[in-house]
C-alpha cells in the first residue's frame, strides 16, 4: 500500500516538474510571440543549445567517450552560461530575420534549429554524437527519495515563479507597453519614435534565453541529453500548443497551458501504454494527431486561448474603477 502511495506521489511530482519546465519554455515563447508577435518555429534549437551547453559545462568527458570538451562548473553558473549562449544565437538569427515579416523569422528559426540538430548529432567531439551525454548532475540528488524529487520540483516552481513575477513586471512597465504597441501597430509605434528592430531583438533574445534555461533544466532533470531530445515535435510543437491553448500574451495562461497540456499528454500516454504493443505505437500517433486537432480547434473557436490576454484598455478601466473606491 505504501509503495503504491509513494509511486503515485512520485508520478504526480514528476508530472508537475515536467509541466513546470514546459512552463519555463512557454513563458519564453510568450515573450517572443505573446508580447511581441515574433514567430519562433525553432524552439527545439534554443532548447538544445541550452541543454547541451549546461551538460558540457557540468560534466567531464567519461572514459571512451568521443567528447573532448568538458568542465565541472557549479550548476547555477552553467545555467547562466546556457542562457547566454542561447541568447547569442538568438542575436545572430534575429539580426538577419527581424527586419522582415514574421514568416521569414519562422523560416530562419526552423533553419537554425535544423543546423543545431545536425551539429549536435554529428560533432561527437562536442556532444558525444548519437550516444548523448549521460550522468549529468541533478540538484539535490544526494537526498533520499522522495525528497530529491520534491526538492527539485520546488526549485522548478521557484524558477517559474521568479520568471512570472519578472515578466509580469516587464509587461506592465513602459517597455512592455511599448512592445504591445509595436505588436498592434508597427507603423504607429515607429511614428512615435520607437526603435522597432531593436525592441524586437530584445524580446527575441530574452525569450531565447528563457528557452535555453528551460533546456538546461530538462537536461539535468533527466540527467541525460541526446540528439533525439531536440526533435522538433516534442519541444517546438508542444510548447506552441501550450501557449496558444493557455492564452498567448498572458503569462498565467502560458503556465496553466503548459501544465495542463503536459498533464493531458502524459496521462493519455498511460492510457495507451496498456494497449497491446502493435496498437500502442499507433495510439501514440493518434495522440499526436489529436494534439494537432486541439490546436486547430483552439485557433478557430477560442482564438484567445483559455485565458485570453486582457487588453490594456480594460486593465486601465479596472484600475480607474478601483482607484476611487480606494480613495473613499
Amino acid at each position, binding site marked *: 500500500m505504501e509503495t503504491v502511495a509513494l509511486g503515485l506521489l512520485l508520478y504526480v511530482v514528476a508530472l508537475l516538474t515536467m509541466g513546470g519546465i514546459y512552463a519555463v519554455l512557454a513563458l519564453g515563447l510568450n515573450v517572443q510571440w505573446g508580447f511581441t508577435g515574433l*514567430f519562433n518555429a525553432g524552439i527545439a534549437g534554443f532548447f538544445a543549445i541550452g541543454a547541451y551547453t549546461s551538460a558540457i559545462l557540468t560534466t567531464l568527458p567519461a572514459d571512451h567517450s568521443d567528447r573532448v570538451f568538458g568542465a565541472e562548473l557549479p550548476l547555477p553558473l552553467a545555467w547562466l552560461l546556457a542562457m547566454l549562449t542561447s541568447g547569442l544565437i538568438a542575436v545572430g538569427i534575429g539580426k538577419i530575420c527581424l527586419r522582415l515579416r514574421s*514568416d521569414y523569422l*519562422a523560416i530562419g528559426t526552423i*533553419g537554425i534549429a535544423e543546423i543545431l540538430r545536425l551539429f549536435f548529432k554529428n560533432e561527437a567531439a562536442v556532444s558525444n554524437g548519437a550516444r548523448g551525454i549521460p550522468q549529468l548532475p541533478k540538484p539535490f540528488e544526494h537526498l533520499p527519495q522522495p525528497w530529491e524529487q520534491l526538492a527539485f520540483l520546488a526549485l522548478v516552481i521557484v524558477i517559474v515563479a521568479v520568471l512570472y513575477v519578472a515578466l509580469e513586471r516587464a509587461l506592465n512597465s513602459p517597455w512592455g507597453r511599448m512592445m504591445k504597441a509595436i505588436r498592434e501597430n508597427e507603423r504607429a509605434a515607429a511614428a512615435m519614435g520607437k526603435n522597432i528592430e531593436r525592441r524586437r531583438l530584445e524580446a527575441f533574445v530574452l525569450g531565447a534565453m528563457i528557452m535555453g534555461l528551460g533546456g538546461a533544466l530538462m537536461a539535468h532533470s533527466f540527467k541525460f541529453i541526446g540528439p533525439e531530445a531536440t526533435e522538433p515535435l516534442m519541444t517546438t510543437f508542444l510548447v506552441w500548443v501550450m501557449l*496558444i491553448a493557455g492564452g498567448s500574451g498572458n503569462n498565467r495562461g502560458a503556465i496553466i497551458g503548459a501544465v495542463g497540456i503536459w498533464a493531458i499528454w502524459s496521462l493519455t500516454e498511460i492510457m495507451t501504454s496498456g494497449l497491446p504493443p502493435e496498437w500502442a505505437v*499507433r495510439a501514440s*500517433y493518434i495522440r*499526436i494527431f489529436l494534439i494537432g486537432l486541439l490546436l486547430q480547434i483552439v485557433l478557430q473557436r477560442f482564438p484567445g486561448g483559455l485565458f485570453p490576454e486582457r487588453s490594456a484598455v480594460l486593465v486601465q478601466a479596472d484600475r480607474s474603477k478601483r482607484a476611487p473606491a480606494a480613495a473613499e
Partner: protein
Amino acid sequence: MLEFVNFYLIPGLVLGSIYALGAIGITMLFGILRFAHFGHGDMMTMGAYVALAVVLAFGLPAMWALPIAMVLAAGLAVGIDRLFYKPLRSGPTIVVVIASFGVALMIRSVIQVVFGVDVESYQPGFQRPVFLFDGSIRILPRHLTIMAVTAGLMLALHLFLTRTKMGKAMRAMSDDPELARATGIDTGRVVVYTWIIGGGLAAAGGVFLGIDTQLTPMMGWNLLLPMFAAAILGGIGKPFGAVVGGLVIGCAEELATYPWLGDGPLLEPSYKSAVAFAILVIMLIWRPTGLFKGRVF
C-alpha cells in the same frame, strides 16, 4: 570530370527537380495567400504515400500511380485548406502559419498510423544505369524519368499561367490582391486552383523522392528548409524563380560534397542541409526579394 557529372551533377539536378516541385507551391501560396505554408513538406509525404497505396492496391508501377496520386493529393490539399486555413483567413496571416504547423503534424501522424513508421519503397530492387555518349555518361533510368516528367510538368505550368484566363488571374492576384479583386477576379476560385497546383506538384515531388530513395514519414518535413530557401532564392511569388532556386539548391547541396580541395568531400554529406540554410541566410541579408525580383512582406 565524368565522375563529377555522374555522381554529383546528375543527382543534384534530380534532387533540385524535387525541391523545385515543392518550392513552386510554397512560392505561389506565399504570393497569393501571403503565408509561409509549413505543411508543404508533409503534403509531399502525403502524395508519396497516396501513390504507395495505389501501387500496393493495384500493383501498378509508381510512375503510373503518379497521376492518380497527384489528383488525390490536389483534392486533399483543397480539403485541408477548407477545413483548417480558410476559417482563419480573415485574421492575421501568422495564425494561418501556426495552423499549417499543426496540419504538418496531423498529416504525418495519419501516415504513421496507417502505414507505420518503417521505411517503405515502391518497388525493391536495383536499377542498372543506362549509358549515354559512348558510355561516358551513366544515368539511372529513374533519374531520366524524374527529370523528364518534371520538365513536362513545368512546361504545362508555364502554359497554364501564361495562356489561360485562370493562370493570368493567379498572376494578377499574386502581384496585387486588392487590384485583382477590384477587377472582378473570383479570388475564391484562384485560391482553390492554387491549392490544386501546389498540392498536385507537391505530390509529384514526393513520389519522385520516393522513387529516387525511400518513403519515410519524415521525408517531406526534411525538405522544408531547402524548399523555403529555393522559394526565397527565386523570389517569393515567382514560380519559375522557385524552379531555378530548387535546381540551384539541389545542385549546391550535392556539389558541396565534391572533393574540391584535397581528397575528402568539401563538406560532410551529413551537413548538406547547411548549404540550403547558408544560401537562405545570404539571400535574406543581401537580397530578400530573390534573384528574380519577387516580393518581400
